[in-house]
């Protein structure tokens, strides 16, 4: 009895860790997209710590890609693809949010509706992937 309770608590703890990894993976991906836009916005003549700023941001983006792949793979050890993959569409919403607040881009009703529809489409594709896995 006590053993099964301890095991349940342990499993819940693991679940939280993997959910954190999944969310971190999404945040890193969104951060990479924002950095890419930032690198595109600043001029190539701008320097940081004596190095070209665009090059530095490019290195950060590449590092972020590596970290994102690591976190994503780690979370997939616990979650099925059909559960984890739709989370990636959250990145689009974070990016839309950042586009509005950080880069002063306009956000329309059709933008939000389009993203919701794209997310539904991803659900369908993932359904298929899960069957194949």
């Amino acid at each position, binding site marked *: 009895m006590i053993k099964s309770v301890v095991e349940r608590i342990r499993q819940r703890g693991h679940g939280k860790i993997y959910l954190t990894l999944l969310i971190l993976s999404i945040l890193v991906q969104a951060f*990479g*997209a*924002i950095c*890419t*836009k930032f*690198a*595109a*916005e600043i001029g190539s003549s701008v320097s940081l710590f004596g190095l070209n700023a*665009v090059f530095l*941001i*490019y290195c950060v*983006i*590449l590092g972020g*890609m590596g970290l994102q792949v690591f976190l994503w793979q780690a979370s997939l050890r616990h979650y099925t693809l059909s559960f984890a993959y739709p989370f990636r569409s959250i*990145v*689009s919403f974070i*990016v*839309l949010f*950042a*586009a509005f607040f950080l*880069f002063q*881009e306009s*956000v*329309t009703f*059709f*933008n939000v*509706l*389009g*993203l*919701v*529809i*794209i*997310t*539904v*489409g*991803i*659900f*369908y*594709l993932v*359904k*298929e992937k899960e*069957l*194949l896995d």
Partner: protein
Amino acid sequence: MNYYILTIVIIVLTSAAHLLLKRGSVIAAGSGMRMYLHPLSLFSYLIFAIVAFLSITAMKGLDLKVFFALTSLTYICIPVLSFAFLKEPVTKNKLIGIIIISIGVVIFNF
């Protein structure tokens, strides 16, 4: 217009890189860490690095939100290339997903 063409190149390159990763992982299946160091996997990492550079260039002319919505077309490109090169079947769910994503991208850019 050139930025849109560049974004399409990015989508195709990203999809091709995913296919190479898949091929590399299938060839090196069961060999543990070697899967990540297989030449096809290494080549796909190189493509991802090139894609990151090209994305910076594309975003010079495109809004962040537009670029990111367009890259959703990768979800369509991968099944199409998988069908063409890996002979993976195109099923009803895949077709429905592809159609819904296409509609979403069109509505996003309305």
